[in-house]
């Protein structure tokens, strides 16, 4: 094995360290010019391992020319979080400074000032630390090719967090671009939690088109589409038969896998509360005093919750009993950036004892010496849990300490299962992902903004990217046509084309104005429609109108939809009174209430991983396993048996009961959140046809609840759950569903059909939602096979449904439904009833609501209609 150059070896020695095996292996991979994937536990010097080959290379480099060859960026580092770039810069500067290396490192994110961005273009740093979104922007730069001509290495940190989904697609396309700018460039991925490294190796590996049969036919003049059509899509990399190929990735053996030694096993405890584990709940409120006690014993605790609203709630609860005035902070993505920076700085200074946070602090940022990780409510997946536990104690040889706080009795089971999974080192796995076409459209537009492109050459580059290896020439042509003219059968937009053909047959952006607008809209992250939360003041004068002042943060529009003026709620650690919405602002005033009227919604937004769901399901049917559970949870299971029933493993329980003004149906398939959501979509469709007026539904990983205007205990449940719903019903539902509209909206934004930002004005999610719905309706009617509709359908089917799993379940329960008509909720159904993250049902319920609102008025009119008519 290669050793370290003396300069570096001395530095390690001066710190009293010796380089770890995986660090040396990464150096060796660098010297061999190999792509590499490093999987090592947190605290193993992973980031340094990723950079060592670059540092060594740069240290050995002579003086750097100011311009021309050799003057460009040497290493590009991409992290999924902006904040991580700053953190890594700090850590990277330590060896650079202490060894005395002349290496120039800079960060660049969406927040970087314009002057610094310009300087980075004129004088590239040696190492540039940035995000995938910035890479997408680089790809749309004029002159990107020469800027990155010297690029030797790209380091992808926390690669497990970015490789899948549309963000991963765009990143993969960006890597393909960089590889074409600098063919010798190495790709390096870093991660702590990967169940199946080959999946990511396959994604990371460039699919070497040079070795594929199709390139043999590449001629100087680009072959026309017809020619390519005659050869049915060439079997790329046929005969290699690697695992990576089978999984839709590139040639994974080109990526060297380096594994770090496992660290000390984590110490994970499940909190068994003195107070009983509640039947219901998602907040862990019952355990707050015990969590507070745990904070008192730790020097710095991170308290992870699964949603922002949950973090608000826990934060408030902790402060309510904070007799010692411990400095406890709050950190989540809705807070104004300035407020987040303050908390991060205070953590780094050691001024805080605890921070309540969401996934914003999941990834490898070291803001301080965290010695305890508390997970409030179940973690939903073992990989996420391992990642979060890794936040504590960044030293390999000492175990990380974590405390799981189940919020309900189902979660007690889940936490127990998660604990067993961590002990077994069983990570979750993700399914293979096929590159999406809306993302590709954005990339193609970006390329055209950067330089004129040849269609065949760009096609070859794109099929070299893992997720797009199976892209056909016809699909590619369709995407290019979409980028150019919108891809409409009615060819009226040819004169408005966004990209045009040059005389030599290449494609380039029509003008700089369009290029500028594209650059403002790159990225594959589409956030839900959000409103600015602003402190309101009343304008003087007769109109007494409220006007928005200081911005407290941003929050999802749907949340405010449920509030009426005067309602109080928690946000940014304070109680506010909602006053109303004007434009894109939610106006609020300080409330004197100590307790908010509207609870913090806090259902888990992460789906329970399938492997964890399986563990829980087995546990619940296995009475012998109950014995590891606390007595009150056992009691709960027994009470369910008395009040309703615990069905055997082959049957599915369905309960119906009235509650308030609504009627409920609760089923317990234990198949995970995703499959349940799909099932609810289809069930509500049938219930709509049956005329019971389904209003909405909510799912947990264990159960689902549907509520309606009319009772559901008389309906034929076998017919309701019949598996033929996966045929025409699925198709028909999808077309009309708001899921499709949501999915279409994302595709429209990512593909550039709708712009999020325009010079001078930002289109908010609020405005965008309305207009994409109108566009969806018109397009569906007049061109149902349009590229974006196809893409939206594919997204909905793969991302929002779990059809295969659902099909197996429906077959299993056929003729095995246990129906219990109850007069009140059962012990089992309580968790789903308080679960938030509800989905609305389209169909007749909207009409029924309008109707009921109108009938009040009609009735009043009818009562005194005669005198009115007579007058």
């Amino acid at each position, binding site marked *: 094995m290669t050793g370290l150059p003396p300069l570096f070896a001395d530095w390690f020695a001066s710190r009293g360290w010796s380089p770890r095996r995986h660090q040396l292996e990464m150096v060796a991979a660098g010297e061999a010019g190999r792509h590499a994937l490093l999987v090592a536990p947190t605290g193993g010097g992973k980031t340094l391992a990723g950079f060592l080959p670059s540092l060594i290379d740069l240290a050995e480099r002579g003086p750097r020319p100011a311009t021309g060859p050799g003057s460009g960026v040497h290493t590009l580092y991409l992290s999924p979080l902006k904040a991580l770039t700053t953190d890594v810069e700090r850590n990277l500067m330590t060896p650079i400074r202490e060894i005395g290396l002349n290496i120039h490192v800079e960060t660049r994110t969406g927040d970087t000032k314009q002057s610094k961005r310009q300087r980075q273009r004129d004088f590239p740093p040696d190492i540039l630390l940035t995000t995938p979104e910035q890479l997408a922007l680089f790809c749309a730069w004029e002159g990107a090719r020469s800027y990155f001509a010297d690029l030797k290495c790209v380091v992808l940190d926390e690669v497990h967090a970015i490789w899948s989904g549309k963000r991963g697609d765009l990143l993969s396309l960006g890597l393909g671009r960089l590889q074409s700018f600098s063919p010798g460039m190495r790709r390096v991925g870093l991660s702590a939690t990967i169940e199946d490294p080959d999946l990511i190796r396959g994604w990371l590996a460039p699919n070497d088109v040079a070795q594929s049969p199709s390139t043999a036919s590449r001629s100087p003049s680009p072959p026309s589409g017809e020619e390519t059509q005659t050869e049915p899509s060439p079997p790329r990399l046929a005969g290699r038969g690697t695992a990576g190929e089978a999984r839709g990735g590139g040639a994974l053996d080109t990526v060297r896998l380096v594994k770090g030694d496992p660290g000390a096993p984590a110490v994970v405890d499940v909190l068994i509360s003195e107070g009983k584990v509640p039947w219901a709940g998602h907040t862990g409120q019952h355990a707050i005093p015990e969590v507070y006690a745990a904070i008192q014993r730790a020097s710095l605790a991170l308290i992870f919750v699964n949603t922002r609203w949950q973090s608000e709630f826990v934060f408030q609860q902790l402060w309510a009993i904070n007799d010692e005035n411990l400095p406890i902070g709050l950190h989540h993505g809705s807070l104004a950036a300035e407020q987040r920076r303050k908390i991060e700085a205070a953590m780094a200074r050691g001024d805080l004892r605890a921070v309540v946070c969401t996934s914003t602090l999941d990834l490898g940022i070291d803001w301080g010496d965290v010695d305890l990780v508390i997970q409030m409510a179940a973690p939903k997946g073992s990989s996420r849990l391992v990642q979060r536990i890794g936040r504590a104690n960044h030293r390999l040889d000492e175990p990380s300490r974590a405390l799981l706080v189940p919020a309900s009795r189902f979660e007690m089971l889940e936490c127990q299962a998660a604990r067993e999974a961590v002990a077994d080192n069983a990570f979750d796995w993700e399914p293979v992902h096929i590159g999406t076409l809306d993302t590709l459209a954005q990339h193609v537009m970006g390329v055209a903004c950067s330089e004129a492109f040849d269609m065949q050459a760009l096609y070859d580059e794109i099929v070299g990217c893992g997720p797009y290896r199976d892209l056909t020439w016809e699909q590619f042509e369709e995407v290019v046509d979409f980028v150019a003219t919108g891809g409409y059968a009615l060819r*009226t937009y040819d004169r*408005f084309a966004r990209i045009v053909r040059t005389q030599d047959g290449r494609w380039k952006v029509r003008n700089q104005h369009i290029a500028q607008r594209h650059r403002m809209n790159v990225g594959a992250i589409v956030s839900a429609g959000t409103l600015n939360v602003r402190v309101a003041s009343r304008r003087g004068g007769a109109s007494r109108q409220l006007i928005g002042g200081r911005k407290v943060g941003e929050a999802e529009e749907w949340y405010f939809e449920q509030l009426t003026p005067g309602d109080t709620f928690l946000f940014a650690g304070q109680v506010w009174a909602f006053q109303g919405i004007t434009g894109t602002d939610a106006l609020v005033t300080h409330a004197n209430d100590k307790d908010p009227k509207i609870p913090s919604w806090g259902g888990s937004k992460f789906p329970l991983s399938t492997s964890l769901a399986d563990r829980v399901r087995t546990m619940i049917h296995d009475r012998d396993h109950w014995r590891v559970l606390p007595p009150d949870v056992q009691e709960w299971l027994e009470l369910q048996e008395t009040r309703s029933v615990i069905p055997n493993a082959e049957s599915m329980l369905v309960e119906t009961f009235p509650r308030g003004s609504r009627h409920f149906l609760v089923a317990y398939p234990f198949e995970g959140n995703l499959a349940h959501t799909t099932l609810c979509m289809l069930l509500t469709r049938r219930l709509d046809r049956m005329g019971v007026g389904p209003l909405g539904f909510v799912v947990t990983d264990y159960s689902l609840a549907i509520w309606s205007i009319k009772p559901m205990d008389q309906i034929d449940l076998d017919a309701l759950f019949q598996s033929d719903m996966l045929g025409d019903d699925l198709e028909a539902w999808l077309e009309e569903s708001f899921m499709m509209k949501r999915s279409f909206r994302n595709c429209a934004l990512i593909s550039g059909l*709708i712009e999020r930002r325009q010079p001078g004005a930002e289109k908010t999610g609020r405005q965008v939602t309305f207009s994409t719905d109108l566009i969806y309706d*018109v397009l569906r009617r007049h061109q149902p096979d349009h590229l974006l509709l196809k893409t939206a359908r594919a997204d909905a089917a793969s991302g929002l449904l779990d059809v295969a799993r659902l099909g197996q379940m429906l077959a299993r329960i056929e003729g095995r439904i246990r129906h219990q008509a109850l007069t009140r909720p059962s012990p089992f159904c309580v968790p789903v009833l308080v679960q938030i993250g509800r989905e609305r049902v389209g169909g007749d319920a909207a009409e029924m609501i*309008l109707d009921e609102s*109108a009938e009040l*008025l009609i009735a009043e009119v009818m009562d005194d209609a005669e005198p009115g008519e007579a007058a």
Partner: protein
Amino acid sequence: MNAALRQTLSPARKTCGSLSVRIAGEACVLRCSGAMWIPAYGALIVADLHLEKGSAFAVRGQLLPPYDSRATLERLEAEIVDLDPAMVVLLGDSFHDTKAIPRMAADDRARLDRLAAGRDWLWLEGNHDRGALARDANAATRLPGRIVGDMVLGALRLTHEPEPLTADDDRRGEVAGHLHPAARVAAYGRGVRRPCFVTDGSRIILPAFGAFTGGLNVRDPAIADLFAAPPLAAALGRDRVHALDWTVLR
């Protein structure tokens, strides 16, 4: 409910879910499509078609589907087939921008000519299409029908943009568009938002008829301040018009 509204809203519900109201004493039918029908004059009134809105975006590089004019005209055609009006009044902003008319696809344009044949077809000028209509006056193949400013129909005065309220209610009888009113109600923890008519029995504002037109909440002062007393919102349902009292609106 105030006395004026009681008088406005007759309890009779017409076929196909329309709602009958009296505006300044004239019997008017509010249709699910968002059009208003005045049987006494055989007049069909629609506001804010915004034809060629899609292509207006396309000119600036945002390639929205070019099917909005077609969709809007199909809906207008359905109303014309159903009612066979003697007169069709377009309350302004029929075209999205000054250069919209020449951008129309040939078959959309032909459909427009077909719809206008055999009836009085009146284009009122709006802020969006004043220029388009003026250009059309000099075009080789002109739009069917006549271009007019405001017009009077019995007790009603048809105009594009509603005038601010005055003390002596001289806006009585005004029929206007321009504001794209939309009503929002909430129940069972969810909201429903729909385009709507707004009327207090003295004046009425029509919803936008165009396929790509958004809406403004009726509670916005721009709409609410046009009425001395809380008006009625008549929201467009799937197959009926829902009369909504001001107090249920969100």
